[in-house]
């Protein structure tokens, strides 16, 4: 959790990067300890992004961006520590409620999963991939769709699992096992961010935006504010859980969604104060983002379909931990351990977060350049440590360059990751289904679950197209701009 606070509170380092960097550290640990480490990091990093967002107006993680406006305004009014205390408590509340929802709904969904065969999983994974593209791409759905297809193709590199035929290896034997996922993620999120920061680096810019804050936590007043905003918290937790449970959505989209809904459901006089330093503007996104982190585990644990980039990385590491998502995880008690760790993490978040607010505020005073160099060093080590393989480090580097190029063209990376995770599953289940049905694709539309999932897929695509056509006023709106 300390590592999660450290990474999350460092601008430029994301929760996803925190998890990607900590997974290599967990390989030599017992399975339970490794899970506890990863779950602890993912929850605490999401909260910790609020620390620099409040003091420096720089979100530590994308999920903190929604809270930045109001949090920083409140800090300028001398309420920095109080804001962070409220953030912390709302994050813990959102996380606890999110885990409770996870605990109550996941086992029921596991029973449903027993009815799934190859084609049901095929439609589900395809739906997950489509949702991830439509939810995460915003105005750039075309770019997001392209990124998803590219992710599927990149994941196909290596020996085919079924027939062991070589695909896109070009005689490079190191590619026989494909492009290692963890180094790819470290490159996409870690190295690309460093390169982007180098692009923005201006040696003449000596301005700093640090805020000297001598306020106190104002515990009683903070608790009164939280009590007065209980409806907002409840509404935001539901929003965060629904959005977080959608594959590909993630805590950042959940946070913005909750912020927007809180704005829309507020009285007119309150709506005008959003962005100027209103407590709702802080409470809504922070409650939603931790609930979303918990909800992202629902599709991950039940179906093996990641809910966000963090669970996508963790699912990749599950193979090393010898954990297989699905109904068996619930019948053999494996999920109970995960629920327990997640709940304990929420409770420990409060003391860990308080320590983070006090201690790691000092770290923010380190030059950003030191942080960037450190990220490169830890990225290289993290990529190498997985397989003690030099080639993995070069994969990390290559994906770093790819991440820079794609983000410069405003191509979202979440669909790319989803394509890499879900693409092989879509292919595998489709081919299994075709073999089992002896080439009869109509078998993919036979069961009720097939029809429900297929209909959901069609509705999702049609709605997405309709919203895009309605929103765009010119074809250029679908293209990245300079």
């Amino acid at each position, binding site marked *: 959790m300390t590592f999660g606070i450290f990474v999350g509170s460092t*601008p430029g380092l994301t929760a996803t990067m925190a998890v990607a960097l900590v997974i*290599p*550290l967990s390989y030599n640990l017992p399975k339970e300890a490794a899970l506890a480490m990863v779950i602890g990091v993912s929850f605490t990093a999401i909260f910790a992004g609020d620390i620099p967002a409040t003091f420096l107006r*720089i*979100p530590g*993680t*994308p999920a*903190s*961006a929604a809270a930045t406006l109001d949090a920083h305004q409140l800090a300028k009014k001398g309420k920095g520590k109080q804001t962070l205390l409220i953030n912390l408590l709302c994050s813990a509340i959102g996380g606890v409620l999110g885990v409770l929802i996870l605990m109550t709904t996941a086992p029921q969904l596991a029973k449903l999963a027993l009815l799934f065969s190859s084609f049901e999983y095929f439609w589900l994974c395809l739906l997950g991939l489509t949702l991830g593209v439509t939810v995460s791409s*915003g*105005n750039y759905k*075309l770019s997001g*769709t*392209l990124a998803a*297809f*590219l992710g*599927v*193709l990149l994941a*196909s590199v290596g020996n*085919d699992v*079924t*027939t062991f*035929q*070589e*695909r*896109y290896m070009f005689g490079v034997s190191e590619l026989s096992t494909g492009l290692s996922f963890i180094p790819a993620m470290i490159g996409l999120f870690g190295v690309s961010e*460093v390169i982007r920061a*180098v*692009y923005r*680096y201006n040696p*003449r*810019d000596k301005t700093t935006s640090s805020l000297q804050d001598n306020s106190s936590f104002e515990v009683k007043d903070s608790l009164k504010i939280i009590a007065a905003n209980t409806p907002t918290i409840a509404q935001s937790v539901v929003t965060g859980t629904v959005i977080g449970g959608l594959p590909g959505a993630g805590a950042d989209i959940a946070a913005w969604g909750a912020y927007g809904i809180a704005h829309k459901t507020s009285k007119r006089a309150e709506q005008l104060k959003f962005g100027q330093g209103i407590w709702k503007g802080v409470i809504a996104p922070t409650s939603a983002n931790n609930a979303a982190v918990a909800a992202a585990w629902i599709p991950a644990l039940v179906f093996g379909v990641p809910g966000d980039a963090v669970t996508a990385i963790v699912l990749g590491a599950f193979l090393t931990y010898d954990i297989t998502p699905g109904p068996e995880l619930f019948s053999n008690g494996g999920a109970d351990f995960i629920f327990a760790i997640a709940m304990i993490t929420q409770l420990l978040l409060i003391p860990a977060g308080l320590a983070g607010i006090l201690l790691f505020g000092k770290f923010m005073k380190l*030059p950003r*350049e030191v942080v*960037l*160099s450190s990220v*490169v*060093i830890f990225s290289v080590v993290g990529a*190498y*440590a997985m397989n*003690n393989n*030099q080639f993995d*480090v070069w994969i990390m580097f290559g994906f770093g*360059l790819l991440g*820079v190029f794609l*983000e410069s063209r*405003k191509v979202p990376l979440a669909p790319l990751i989803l394509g890499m995770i879900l*693409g092989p599953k879509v*292919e595998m289940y*489709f081919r299994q289904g*075709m073999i089992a049905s*002896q*080439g009869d694709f109509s078998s993919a539309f036979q069961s009720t679950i097939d029809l429900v999932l297929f209909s959901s897929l069609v509705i999702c695509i049609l709605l997405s197209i309709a919203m895009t056509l309605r929103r765009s*006023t*010119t*074809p*250029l709106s*679908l293209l*990245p701009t*300079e």
Partner: protein
Amino acid sequence: MSTDAPKHALGETSISQWLFPVFWILVGSGFYLGATTITTAIVQDKHDPGPAAICMLCAVAIIILGITQAVQLLLASRSARPTLPPPATTHSDDSQQSRVIQDPTLALRQVFLGVATIAVYILAVFQIGFGLATFTFGIVSMKSLGVSWRNTLLATTTCIATVYLVFIELLGILLPTGRWDFPF
């Protein structure tokens, strides 16, 4: 932004905007051609679509979408309607704006140097060992970004010490020692 930066009239597009649709068409074409070299296995079930099916499907989809982007760009270049501003990204560092405007040429040069430095660092890790390569990289990168000598040495040694304690001592993971087998 440099005052020499080209200003585009309403509806005009720069050459760099064409780069992206062309990129996607080339990527799709490359993957499609690569998929045609994937052979059918002897043990493959006759109802199995095969390892090349999804690759070709995705490659064709990328080509089609890339052409769609190019067509949209062409239509936009002939349109007089104003462009929409890009949506605000949720990426953490996009919210941080430098108050001193940076020359794009200088920025690109910084990027090339940064990328080259990282590539040289990775090469050096496997040639001269992790410790020496990291020490050198830390000093070169931080000094070139304007960090003081004191902070550079402190941060570099702290990073190396942390990696040594966590990876080598705690987790027992061996890091590269290079051609000449340096101890660390």
